[in-house]
């Protein structure tokens, strides 16, 4: 009986955090955020060197063959550092899609390149989580047409695309008829684009015909994204506590005011059970399959709420400094906000949780 991270996972956490402490400091993040040409290649290359890109890739394909909980550990580190890195898309969503639905040739072609960090894959799954407006992609004869709004990782080399029947396709960035239109949004640490398809050649992942693979990819994405939110929220609490211990008003550090203390206590009280839920949901996806989808929905929605509460409260504890760009606290605030809306907003995901149980 061991509910928690293993020694290896703790070591992984320390390794990634140390790397990000050194290589994804806030000023590096700002540089990425301010400069559209900067794709954060150095950060991703460094992470790939540490095995992050290869984490979920099977050993047979040059990977490490770890599990969702390990991915959650990494995501928590990335969220804590608001690090720009295509981890969720490339190392989690694309790898899961290929493993679940790719044929042997596809796996052999792409998984090793993902594992060694040389291939970066974006993910256009928004329509499978609630298609906005007229967006949507249709597939026929190996070609895609239509629009995928809100693809994650605008800078990818190729894209994983869900069509209107939740089949999964792989499209090269330079494929004929593919348009990649970056969408400006609040969280400048994660880039999003609209993809337009005009009879664009695509490769179907053959195992995705019944839509189940797409849903499995979304499940793991939601869990890993929740872990990213967890890391961001924990970091905001840490920053708030540290700031409160230094900032003086009325001849006292504000950390000695009961109102400030209670705000911090409420954040901690929201975060701790959320952490346990993230761990369990990650564990369940691999080990308790009958609970996996339900806990994936719940962790997505619950961390959206925890994150929103912490993002607001930690900013308030910082007072005016939280509102300025000076400390950069807003990068965390916006990352949490981004994670809330992508891959399914909270009401949507809760309704899915009800449906999984036959309640709706």
């Amino acid at each position, binding site marked *: *009986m*061991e*509910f*928690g*991270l*293993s020694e290896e996972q703790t070591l992984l956490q320390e390794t990634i955090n140390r790397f990000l402490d050194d290589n994804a400091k806030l000023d590096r993040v700002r540089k990425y955020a301010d400069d559209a040409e900067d794709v954060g290649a150095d950060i991703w290359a460094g992470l790939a060197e540490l095995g992050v890109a290869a984490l979920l890739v099977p050993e047979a394909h040059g990977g490490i063959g770890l599990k969702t*909980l390990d991915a959650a550990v990494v995501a928590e580190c990335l969220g804590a550092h608001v690090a720009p890195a295509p981890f969720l898309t490339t190392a989690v969503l694309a790898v899961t899609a290929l493993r679940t639905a790719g044929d042997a040739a596809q796996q052999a072609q792409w998984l090793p390149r993902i594992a060694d960090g040389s291939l970066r894959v974006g993910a256009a799954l928004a329509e499978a989580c609630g298609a906005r407006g007229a967006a949507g992609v249709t597939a026929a004869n190996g070609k895609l047409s239509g629009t995928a709004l809100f693809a994650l990782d605008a800078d990818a080399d190729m894209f994983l695309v869900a069509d209107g029947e939740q089949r999964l396709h792989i499209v090269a960035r330079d494929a004929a008829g593919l348009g990649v239109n970056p969408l400006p949004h609040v969280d400048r640490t994660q880039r999003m684009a609209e993809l337009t398809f005009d009879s664009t050649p695509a490769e179907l992942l053959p195992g995705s015909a019944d839509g189940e693979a797409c849903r499995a990819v979304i499940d793991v994405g939601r869990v890993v994204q929740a872990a990213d939110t967890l890391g961001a929220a924990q970091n905001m609490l840490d920053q708030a*506590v540290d700031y*409160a*211990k230094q900032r003086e008003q009325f001849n*006292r*550090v504000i*950390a*000695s005011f*009961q109102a*400030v*203390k*209670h705000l*911090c*206590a*409420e954040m*901690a*009280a929201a975060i*701790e*059970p*959320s*952490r*346990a*839920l993230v*761990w*369990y949901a990650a*564990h369940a996806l691999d*080990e308790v399959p009958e609970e996996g989808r339900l*806990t994936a929905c*719940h*962790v997505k*929605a*619950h961390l959206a*709420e925890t994150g929103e509460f912490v993002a607001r409260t930690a900013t308030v504890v910082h007072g005016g400094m939280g509102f300025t760009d000076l400390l950069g606290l807003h990068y965390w605030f916006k990352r949490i906000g981004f994670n809330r809306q992508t891959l399914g907003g909270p*009401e949507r995901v*809760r*309704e899915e*949780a*009800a449906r999984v149980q036959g*309640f*709706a």
Partner: protein
Amino acid sequence: MDLSYGPEYDDFRQEVRSFIAKHKHLAPTQQGVRSPRVKEWQQLLIQHGYAARTIPTEYGGYGAEPDILKGRIIGEEFAAGQVSTGLSGQGISMLVPTLLELGSEAQKQEFIRPTLTGEFVWCQGYSEPNAGSDLASLRTSAVLDGDDWVINGSKIWTSTAHLADWMFCLVRTEPDAPKHQGISFLLLRMDTPGIEIRPLVDMTMQPNFNEVFFTDVRVPKEQIVGHRGEGWRVANAVLGHERESLGDPNASLSRLNRLIHLMQTETVDGARPMDNPALRDRLMKFQARVMAMRFNDLRILSARLNGADAGLARMITKLQATELRHELEGFAIDVMGEFGLLYGKHPYVRDQGSWQNQYMYFLGLIIGGGTSQIQKNIISERGLGMPREPKAIVKAEA
């Protein structure tokens, strides 16, 4: 992450199950500290190591090594079998561990065995009307007069005072010492002259608690645990344990499941509450919170198994669990509408009125055993390292 208990424990679980299957017919169906059947059942449990498991045999226990998982398995299986786990109460849960840690040998010999067998029923005398959150400001006094302590004052929130043979209590014996250092921990018989017990009805309209008044109550001077002035330390040796026990996540889960059943069986205008998307959305929020607290509890368990302290995960439990339960019970009332208001004896009352009862009772638990405000102080100070409030210069203007 490994949520299995391992083969040794699977075997143990089987043992427990066999015991339950074989002896279930002997188990009492009602709690009642004086019933012979309860006492016999308790004796049987101790013999098999399912009660008083880690108490040394010389004091009437089973004498097993502490094993958190075995303890948990016993709890799980008895709950699953809906079989009584024997006697409970503050004597067994608080006094016995206290005596084991800080009692004299004579006290251990005198009190532990009869407490375990149910011969001595105990109540706890800590809180006073003016000493709640600020327990250390208690005023009930004990003055040494010859060979006796002479006690005057009163206690409140004394849950089983009207049933108890004995009370363990905190009294002020050193009025001139700093407030935490002036307290002693005494044991006294409840039939001592000068004790008056008044039932204390709470908002559930049940006398769950009592007030106890002391007028020149004489207690032999050796009935002190630890030394004079050490009572605060003696009491705190086991206080932490109580706070955690308020937040049993399995109880929340079973209430949630019961609520789901209600939402699928009640109807409003011919539709089930479960068919109402706004209610369903609220249900899903609660389900996620209940899950999160269950896994938080596993995390605490896991830390204890490793001899570690789960830190914040443990500190937030009482705060979160009591608020969750209160809100969950209140949500069920919303689901039932007017049916949720019914309370008392009537065929229309759902689940014996437990939703209203628990809605109020858990508001009491939000307050009791360290209010949510005190919990937040603890979390921020001990958990987050934030400074204590500066001491006040003067009493605030009224």
